[in-house]
């Protein structure tokens, strides 16, 4: 079996393994082993990829496999990875790994919970390895559906409402997406080619200008909903607030990245002319996301809402950077996806752990946690500093790459939106420090909290893994940046050829 398919198969095998488990303990062990294998596989893939590139393999995608799946419509199970997908796969496996450890203590229907979670992750992995947009879409749906079950059953607060809202909005996005994908598919025959779903083949075709003009915004919005683009972001605060810890982690950490990834891999790569024509509108929307999310976060009192709005802001920056359509900014966008993925997973993991102890997420009801649970508090400070873009953590690398890239456009419009986006770093500092100041520092406000215990070993595994991730990117970003920039070359070239 090839290494890429194993990313889908290992989770499925783990699920089968979990079926035979008799106790929660066994389930934990099996799921932890399964996801550790997945993590190791991801880094093995990274090593293999780097080795192959080092050996001079310059193909756009490596480890390609292609099996005909549904001949009548020319749908293939076509897989392959470039540097970007490899990076996203590593991100996913890190977050899933940490998520399994963060949900160690779920007591209610533990087995079913883990199964849904792993099923979700297999959908995400499938999405990232696909180069056939139909299979890509299929895996995307596999990833979205378990979300409804996970939030609806294991969530908190108005969970049915939130689960329904999240699923419906994402399904609405999918509807757009389906339309866009079919639109692309039926027009691939324009120059006498056979109709195809394969990204690499479509990338060689020039889709008719009108078609691009119609289907680019449809596809972009379809993915943009998932990427929490203003004004389609409202599923995110409610959904995250109600979701159980691991689901929030996975959702904000990985699923929202599907949106960003899809936006450039499908919408922009396949329809460059549409991208140019529509970029002004979407850049405006994403710039609004960046600022709006940050200001929205200042006023929130619930930790998860704060983080959800912060995610809107950070993910807005991803789409913003992608739309700048130069290598540097897009490179920054990918690093921002990775960075935000790990960072926000860390945030949600910590929020879950704190909530598990204090049974509240309202910041004003807590205080002085640094004294009670120093380990978790220090991790929270680290996550906060990473989020406000402190050098040494991944957020800084991502933001600076984005800003420098975006500033390479000299037109006034680009300058203004870039300055707007830059100013979010100040607002971010305000809401992060507000939380840190109220929640962690100061005197202990509630005496009942004094008996609470600090992190357990599995919680430490979860948080330390994620912190290592953000520090590794933040301290030595060059190799990652090179990995991404190499793979961006064909995409940026295709985008620049049609510049008009």
């Amino acid at each position, binding site marked *: 079996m090839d290494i890429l398919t194993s990313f889908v198969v290992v989770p499925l095998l783990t699920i089968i393994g979990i079926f035979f488990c008799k106790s929660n303990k066994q389930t934990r062990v099996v799921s932890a082993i399964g996801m550790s294998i997945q993590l190791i596989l991801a880094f093995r893939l990274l090593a293999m990829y780097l080795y192959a590139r080092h050996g001079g393999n310059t193909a756009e995608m490596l480890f390609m496999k292609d099996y005909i799946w549904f001949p009548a419509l020319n749908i293939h199970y076509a897989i392959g990875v470039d540097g970007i997908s490899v990076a996203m796969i590593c991100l996913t496996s890190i977050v899933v790994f940490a998520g399994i450890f963060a949900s160690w203590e779920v007591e209610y229907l533990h087995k079913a919970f883990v199964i849904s979670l792993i099923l979700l992750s297999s959908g995400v992995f499938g999405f990232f390895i696909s180069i056939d947009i139909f299979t890509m879409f299929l895996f995307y749906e596999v990833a979205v559906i378990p979300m409804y079950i996970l939030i609806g059953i294991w969530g908190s607060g108005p969970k049915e409402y939130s689960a329904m*809202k999240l699923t*419906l*909005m994402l399904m609405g996005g999918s509807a757009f997406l389906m339309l866009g994908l079919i639109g692309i598919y039926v027009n691939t025959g324009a120059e006498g080619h056979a109709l195809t779903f394969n990204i690499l083949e479509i990338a060689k075709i020039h889709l008719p200008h009108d078609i691009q003009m119609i289907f680019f915004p449809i596809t972009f919005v379809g993915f943009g909903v998932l990427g929490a683009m*203003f*004004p389609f*972001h*409202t*599923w995110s*605060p*409610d959904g995250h607030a109600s979701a159980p810890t691991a689901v929030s982690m996975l959702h904000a950490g990985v699923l929202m990245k599907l949106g960003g990834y899809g936006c450039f891999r499908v919408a922009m790569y396949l329809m460059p002319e549409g991208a140019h024509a529509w970029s002004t509108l979407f850049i405006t929307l994403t710039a609004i996301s960046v600022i*709006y999310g940050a*200001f*929205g976060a*200042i*006023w*929130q009192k619930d930790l998860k809402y704060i983080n959800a709005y912060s995610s809107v802001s950070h993910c807005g920056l991803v789409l913003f950077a992608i739309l700048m359509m130069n*290598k*540097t900014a897009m490179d920054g966008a990918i690093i921002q996806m990775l960075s935000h993925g790990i960072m926000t997973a860390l945030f949600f993991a910590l929020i879950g752990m704190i909530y598990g102890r204090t049974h509240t997420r309202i910041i004003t009801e807590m205080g*002085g946690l*640094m*004294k009670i649970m120093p380990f978790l508090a220090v991790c929270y400070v680290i996550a906060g*500093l990473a989020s*406000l*873009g*402190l*050098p*040494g953590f991944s957020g*800084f*690398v991502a933001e*600076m*790459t984005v*800003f*420098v*890239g975006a*500033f*390479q456009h*000299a037109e006034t419009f680009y300058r203004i939106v*870039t*300055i707007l986006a*830059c*100013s979010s*770093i*100040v607002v971010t*500092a*305000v809401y992060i*420090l*507000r939380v840190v*100041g109220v929640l*962690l*520092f*100061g*005197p202990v406000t509630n005496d009942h909290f004094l008996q609470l215990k600090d992190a357990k070993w599995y919680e430490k595994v979860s948080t330390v893994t994620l912190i290592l991730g953000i520090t590794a990117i933040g301290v*030595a*970003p*060059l190799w990652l*940046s*090179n990995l991404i*920039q190499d793979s961006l070359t064909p995409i940026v070239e295709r985008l620049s050829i049609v510049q008009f």
Partner: protein
Amino acid sequence: MIDFSISVLVPLLPLFMFIFIGLTGHKFKPLVSGILGTLSIFTSLVISYTIAYQYFFNVGKVNGVYQKIIGFNTVWLQLTQNLHIDMGTLLDPISVMMIVVITTVSSMVHLYSLGYMKGEKGFHRFFSFLSLFSFSMLGLVLATNIFQMYIFWELVGVSSFLLIGFYYEKPSAVRASKKAFIVTRFADLGFLLGILLLSYTTKTFDFIQLTNPNGAAIHMGGSVLFMGLSTMTWALIMIFIGGAGKSAMFPLHIWLPDAMEGPTPVSALIHAATMVVAGVYLVARLFPMFAISAPAGLEVVAYVGAFSSLFAAIIACTQFDIKRVLAYSTMSQIGYMMLAVGVSGYGGEEGLGFMASMFHLFTHAMFKALLFLGAGAIIHAVHSNFMYDMGGLRKHLPITHITFLIAVLTISGVPFLSGFFSKDEILAAAYAHNKILFFSALFVAGLTAFYMSRLYFNVFWGKENHYHHTPKESPLTMTIPLMILAVFSIVAGYIPFHNLVTSDGKPFETEMNYTIASISVLFGLVGIVIAAIMYAKPTNIPDKIVASVKTFHKWAFNKFYFDELYLFVTKRVLFNCVSRPVAWFDRHIIDGSMNGISNVTNYISVKIKGFQSGQVQQYGFVFVMGAVLLVATFIYLLTY
């Protein structure tokens, strides 16, 4: 000869110590972390002194000009083809001087803290943060490119945040740390935009290329961008905003007095000697650009500096918290340095202001660190920050008294102490450039002597307070650094700065301007004498004077209500008028319309559901009506 790549160890040693103490510090006795941290900074000290000696007296000078030497350099992040962020060490007169200043003050502070912080909770945390700060500050001054500087600039900011908030259970400390971080962060936004603008026009981050007076980058000023100033000028002004934030220049100064909530050694190291002069260093680092292609930017620097120094000196005269007096004094002295660098020209004797600024930075670091550490010793003995709780301490704290006196005389510009020499150069430079700035600076010199002497007399003379415990002199770990710094404060003035640290690397001759020197000394003495009359013995003169300028005093005492202004803007305007509406808009308009869609769908489905009633009459009615409608349509169509 010396291999300058060793310079990379100067920041790296504290970094290792930060990581080591941070991760393992809680495992062993607190004192071990303290000693380890102190040892590492002393090693850095030895290395930087070696580098300084080798650089200034052996290899730095080629054909009479000090060269810029790259000790170590590696690409950290490749952004575009031309733009890449490097990590490395750049040695030139100002950076070498700065590593000497930083390692000296930092090691004194480390040593002092071993005594001062004894028994505090979080002793190892304190030392790991100190190491983090030392690392960041050293990295900042050694930066080879402006982006590296920005990176360390942020790290310095966060170490300052962590150290101000060291007593995290104290709400005032938490507030102060937040304020410091956010205000400087706001300024850093200017810095960042400046870098973006600058790098876009010059296509490089590299200091050597940027500041080469004959290079291409410096002349790529760009066309007029906005309000009659070129792109380059705007970029440099933006960058200066970043510097002004860190250096607590008006109007971004509000964080500095509050930052005194941190432990006193931290105030000495970060908020007096090193971090707050980063803004001056930044202007000095980009000085050729300022002087050659953006003189308008330099004017801004000079006026901001002059105004800040006057403004802060007035406030300092009215405060009672000794650390706040020192904080305003710091702000005032940094204003002096900004003023000096702002009035300077490039090259030769034109560069007098530049040299004077660096000179004053050096001497100020020594005597201000001494003042703060002395204040720490006083607070340690009296357990209060306020001068009305003190008085007559000269008998109880002899060593602190003598060293503090030396520092007060130095900052007041008493002849033959270091402050006299550096202040005189600044005044001479200001006199040559702009008379208004000169008179303002001269007046500030008098004020400085006054408020420092006021502080001194109130603490060590004046009425004898009845202390609960008789104040005791501090342990040797605290008094030794005081003595060493006192020696530095005296002798630092005899370092021939005009031979070593100049704007273009070439030495030039300066002469003492005796007229200016005697006037400034006169102003200083007048200030001291007035303070002596008012405060050496308990009198009611101060109250009378306060009563005569009541309104003005009230404004100055309340720091001209700048804190209130900022609070108004952030709390009332930003929070209530921006953030709150955004949150409301999001919940009610955006989300409301999403919910609206679902409600409409729901409503329609309820209506359609009505057809499925199970009532035969209704089905029959609908069937008949439908049939009639169909027939009518057919007939209508057939008639055409």
